[in-house]
């Protein structure tokens, strides 16, 4: 008689996990099933299908499709638009990412370096992150307008001849990069501020005792090393955000003039959704995915090394 045993509720307690085990497994399955199905139907399935499509010559509206192996990828290597897009996208990342991170770290250090107006500055710098980028791109277009734009008017006061910021192939990419820094800066600032707050104050005190008197010495000995993981995270996130540059190009330049501002997602959009060359566009998307994955892999590699050797 289990009930007669001392500590009589031990038996039901023992029995319960077995019962709950079955029920728990069923509940787990049932609760996760809708998400699992949706995950396959909307993300994993279509992504695999995309990779498969990149080996075909399918065009929307065409009767059938043929397997052409690496045909699309071979065509990419000779496609001026794609090559310009790849070059411009990497250039965009190479400029916007370090600029946003350098400026963002500086702003975060300054904001955290005092108490006055901290919340206000944080909000102002963050504002572009939550603003509708297409609308703000339109505002930038007015600012950068060759004849009536305030930027050229301001430069004119100093005798500088007007520049056709978005209309000349020399200036269009630098202009888009500037808008990119403006757009990403607040994001970087907020991430670095979170990293700075996590550094224990005692470490600064200890560094000062050890002779790190100047602000620069404290930054080099305490802030920068302890900010390492944050920095790595910020680098990856910002790089991926930059790789996805699309809105400003679609709204302002459409890749022009003369492909000088063509970027990966915009070529992919044009080929796939305006020319309906699905197979070819899929190959461009695959290249885009490969670049994103390579970046993430690089991040985990560096993280691993840090964990092992630091």
């Amino acid at each position, binding site marked *: 008689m289990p009930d007669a045993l001392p500590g009589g509720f031990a038996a039901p307690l023992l029995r319960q996990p077995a019962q709950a*085990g079955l029920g728990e*497994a069923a*509940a787990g399955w049932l*609760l996760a099933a809708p998400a699992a199905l949706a995950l396959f139907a909307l993300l994993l399935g279509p992504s695999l299908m*995309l990779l498969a499509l990149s080996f075909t010559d399918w065009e929307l509206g065409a009767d059938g499709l043929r397997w052409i192996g690496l045909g699309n990828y071979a065509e990419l290597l000779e496609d001026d638009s794609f090559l310009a897009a790849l070059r411009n996208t990497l250039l965009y990342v190479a400029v916007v990412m370090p600029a946003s991170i350098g400026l963002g770290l500086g702003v975060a250090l300054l904001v955290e370096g005092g108490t006055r107006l901290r919340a206000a500055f*944080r909000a102002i*710098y963050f504002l572009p992150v939550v603003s*509708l980028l*297409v609308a703000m791109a339109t505002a930038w277009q007015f600012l950068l307008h060759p004849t*009536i734009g305030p930027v050229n008017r301001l430069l004119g006061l100093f005798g500088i001849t007007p520049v056709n910021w978005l209309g000349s192939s020399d200036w269009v990419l630098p202009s888009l990069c500037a808008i990119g820094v403006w757009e990403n800066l607040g994001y970087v600032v907020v991430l670095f501020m979170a990293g700075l707050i996590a550094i224990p104050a005692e470490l600064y005190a200890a560094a000062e005792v050890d002779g790190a008197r100047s602000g620069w010495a404290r930054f080099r000995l305490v802030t920068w090393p302890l900010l390492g993981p944050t920095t790595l995270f910020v680098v990856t996130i910002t790089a991926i955000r930059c790789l996805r540059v699309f809105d400003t190009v679609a709204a302002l330049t459409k890749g022009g003039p003369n492909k000088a501002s063509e970027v990966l997602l915009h070529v992919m959009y044009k080929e796939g959704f305006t020319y309906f060359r699905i197979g070819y566009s899929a190959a461009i998307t695959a290249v885009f995915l490969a670049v994103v994955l390579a970046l993430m892999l690089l991040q985990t590699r560096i993280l691993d090394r840090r964990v092992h050797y630091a």
Partner: protein
Amino acid sequence: MRPGPERSLLADLPRLLLLGFGALLVLAPYLWMLSASLKPGGEIFRDSLSLWPERFHALENYGKALREVPLLRFLLNGAVVCLAILALQLLFAVPCAYALAKLRWCGREAMFALVLAGLLIPAHVPALPLYAGFAAAGLLDSYAALVAPFAISVFGIFMFRQAFRSLPDELIQAARMDGMGELGIVWRVVLPNAWPTATAFATFSIVAHWNDLFWPLVVVQSPAMATPALGVLFFRAEEAGNDVGALMAASVIVTAPMVAFFLLAQRRFIQGVATAGLKG
């Protein structure tokens, strides 16, 4: 480096000046956008540098912006789409996250691995096959096409799982003792106890989809279905797009709701968008 005891204003001045100068650069497009939206066209052409209008033309500009394209309809579409996406994301992600965090079942590790794999894939990757699917089903240019692809948020599952794991098991045991079913536990015990995560995720999701241009551009053709981001492009394509004052007024109208929302709930916003950085 570290905010010590309050410094004197004089010592703090270089910091304030540098940050103030940067803030001015960040705010510049907002200031001139607002300014131009209040000015008549002639004044913009003559002197675009000064911010304060000599003659107020706000009624005409904003009136024209609202007349030329259905801006309010765009805002409404944006709200409907964002809220529908958020509701579906919660509906799919929250129970799954609970199952991953608190229940033992075979397949759990595999499911979590799939979620992590999903985190690596940008939303642009499944776009082409999804588009072909919606086109074949005759569903382009509809709310369904705007909402459905985002019903599953792997990031949401991940974020909620992390939050649910830190909830005490006793809480769930107690609810079971009270005879609550697992679904009841998910929605009435677990989710309310992870409220900061829920609001952070909600702000992240709403900002991301309010601002998204790529997918609406792909599936929407008619202005009646346009979201605010796409609406700006429609406006620019109209004749009124050449009227700088009206164009800036339209930009102000579509930018204002999210900015106002942000200023009201800054902390939550920054938390949501920053912690959700993983999938931007």
